């Protein structure tokens, strides 16, 4: 056996255990497949759009003007399964596009917040002292501002062409705004975990062996908090989707991209006329996705770390 062999066994068997336990939970697995289905849809929409924006069967713009009246949900054609809005645009297709927008934003925002939060949290927790003070100062400042205002402020600022030359308007603005404002939670969590673990005996053992600080952080500490990042990611993802909806509802998102928030915004006043399907479609799309994510995230948490308390 050589070292490569040893390395190849480094996929933690804790993960295997967790997945085995997870697979035993039927309900959680159903939720997992629902979430996976959403992701597949998002990827499908993305590919369909990028291959040929005009010819693709689900081109949103193409819909415009094909009918000029509301159509109630009917099974006559795929486009009218969920009915249409008053321009004759298929609710189904808008909803599908919303999947892509929501998932893209939530995913990018999650990645950004993890990219910022994890290194900062790890550095603050491990080194302590001035580094810790500065990081704590930054995140207490951010966490003392209500996120909704902060996200809006960032969205407004990132949309401003003076600062970013207009390049960050629209979707990048939204996920940057969410990402830049919501790394606080994960940073605080990681910092706490690192502080808790840096005095643990296996870290002392690594020190005693002569490991450098970076080796201790990256090889010994971070793999041990990785499951926390994953759990946090899965739970945070839901809140990012909800944030995206609220942001685009308030008109701070990318108006060029169809999104659930915009659907809700457009459909809200139409309820009065009994046009319920657009509102319902968007709501249900969000509801099913977040329900599945929530249940799956909970199961993941239970399996990965039953003792971890929810951090919101």
């Amino acid at each position, binding site marked *: 056996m050589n070292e490569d062999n040893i390395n190849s066994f480094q996929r933690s068997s804790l993960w295997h255990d967790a997945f085995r336990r997870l697979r035993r939970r039927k309900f959680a697995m159903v939720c997992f497949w629902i979430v996976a289905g959403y992701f597949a849809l998002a990827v499908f929409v993305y590919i369909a759009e990028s291959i040929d924006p005009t010819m693709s069967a689900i081109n949103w*713009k193409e819909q415009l003007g094909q009918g000029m009246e509301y159509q109630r949900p009917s099974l006559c054609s795929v486009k009218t399964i969920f009915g249409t809005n008053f321009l004759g645009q298929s609710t189904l297709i808008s909803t599908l596009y919303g999947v892509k927008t929501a998932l893209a934003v939530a995913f990018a925002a999650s990645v950004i917040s993890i990219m910022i939060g994890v290194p900062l949290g790890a550095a603050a927790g491990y080194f302590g002292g001035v580094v810790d003070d500065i990081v704590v100062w930054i995140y207490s400042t951010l966490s003392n501002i209500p996120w909704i205002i902060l996200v809006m402020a960032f969205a407004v600022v990132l949309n401003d062409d003076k600062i970013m030359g207009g390049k960050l308007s629209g979707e990048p603005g939204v996920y940057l705004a969410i990402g830049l404002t919501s790394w606080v939670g994960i940073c605080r969590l990681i910092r706490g975990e690192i502080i808790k673990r840096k005095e643990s005996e296996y870290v002392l053992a690594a020190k005693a062996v002569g490991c450098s600080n970076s080796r201790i952080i990256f090889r010994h500490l971070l793999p041990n908090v990785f499951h926390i990042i994953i759990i946090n990611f899965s739970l945070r993802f839901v809140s990012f989707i909800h944030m995206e909806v609220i942001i685009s509802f308030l008109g701070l998102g990318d108006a060029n991209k169809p999104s659930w928030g915009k659907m809700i915004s457009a459909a809200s006043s139409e309820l009065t006329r009994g046009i319920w399907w657009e509102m319902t479609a968007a709501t249900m799309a969000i509801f099913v996705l977040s329900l599945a994510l929530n249940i799956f995230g909970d199961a993941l948490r239970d399996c990965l770390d039953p003792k971890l308390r929810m951090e919101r």
Partner: protein
Amino acid sequence: MITNDWHRRLILLILILPTIHTGCRKDPADEKGMVLRQALLSKPQTLDSGNMSDVYSMMVGGDIYEPLYTYHYLKRPYELIPLSADGMPEVSEDHLTYTIKIKKGILFQDDPCFRGSKGREVTVHDYIFAFKRMANIKFINVNWSGWQNKIVGLDDFHEYTRQFKDEYSVDYSKEVDGLLALDDHTIQIKMVKPYPQFISALADICLSPVAQEAVNYYKDEINSHPVGTGPYRLNKWHKGSYLIVVRNNNWRGEKYPTEGEPGDAEEGLLDDAGRELPFVDAVYWTIFKQQQPAWLSFQKGLLDSKSIPKDNFKEAITSETGLSEEMRERNIRLVKFVDPSVFWIGFNMKDKVLGNNLPLRKAISLAIDRERFIDIFFNGHHVAAHGFIAPGRDSYDPEINKCGYSRYDPEQAKLLIKEAELICGDSIAPLKLNMPGSGTFFTQYGQFLQRSFEDVGLTLKVDYMDLPTYMEQTAKGKSQLFASSASAVSPDSLDVLGMFATKNFAPGSNLFFYSNSEFDKLYEEGEVMFPSDQRNELYRKMERMVMEDYPAVFLNHRVSYVLYHDWNRNVKPHAFSFGLTKYRKIDVEKRNKYKDLLRSIR
């Protein structure tokens, strides 16, 4: 572990908790007294007459303040009549000096700022004060830009105020030559040059009399403590939520007009002719930030009337017949009126691609199907625009469609684009349009345009932005194409013509950076001309001149709609005038029965 009954009690409590609040409901519609309930779709910025510029402020302010002149409520075409002035002004031969008498016995409303809290009589000094205040540099005033270089000496006063620390330390006793009080009830105004629109400008609420006592008393809070002379006075204003105005007992009194447009009598608009105004005792203005509650409230009879915003046009109006069945069942009435306005896609003439490429601009115009646009977005109720002077204005040119490229002709557009590409030397780069909003209407509007551009082989990128950003970008000349619109404030068309004058380059009203020396010359001429056929001819000539150059694609003229419940009487919308509440009347009994009607429909 044994079960106890404590948790059963807890469950019961949790179930009961939410129901506690439901007990105390009281419908305001049941109240006695004639109360009009109106909706505002945005919050009024201010109730300080001197600084009013937004429609919502004026809708409320119009009931509180009285400028010198106003428009007749019923007569069409619009006719200016004296309001607080005593008759029309005496104008000198050279059209530079106006002598205006004001009505005697006009009192300010009772207010703590006056001695004994009793409203004093209005004198011409209060009008002069309003002018001077507008010119006060420290009182950053949105209306000043329109009065620059108009009245003799007022610009000097503007400079003079620069030296003071703040708005309130400015010494207003410095005389302005152009604003002379001949006596307490007569004012003489001297103009720098003839200003034909002067009288209609005097109908603007921002020139209502202002009591200096009030300004000095309330200082910064004057915004929310309007001291006016109108039929109503502010009772309560919760910013961003609601306003209540109630009858002003100091009002001089007025009677309902006895004559109107043909057909008004049949509509019942003359039923109250000659009766003492105002009818309603109080007006509740509710500010709705979201559409849904406004609609729900109107449907439920909690609002007496409601205009239809562009976002939700389809809601109440079906294509041909007008009002939808559901609305008619509820005895809801619809009234439409021409609101002289124009929607356009502007070109930035300083832009490299568009500026010197007339065929491209024309091609874009040909590429857009105006009829279809109106069909889709306004159910065919708007009017396609061929020029920019809207129907309902003095100098509207019914023949303008014959000139220019306002028809829909994608084939020719494609040919023109080929031509345009020769000028460019390359294929046309993707164009960028700034859209002043990101609501549903704007996104669909944007998509419609994108589609139209695509059809003729152009690419359009739409940038949806909030209004302030849009305004800043456009004013700085940073946008390439921009969607915009203009509404008239008076029947005169000079304001829209001014949008193409070189001297009005942005940040002024010429957002197109359109420059044509010949046009400028005619504009100078037109600026001092008084309404006449000759002037109309000149205006039309200027319009055609602009249409030759196509600095913008004009799409449509708006027709506005107002829905109202049948208990709301004397509803006749007006394009320019505010302060119409005093004419309105409520059939309280009918309103109270609405609940039963709703129940029967359900």
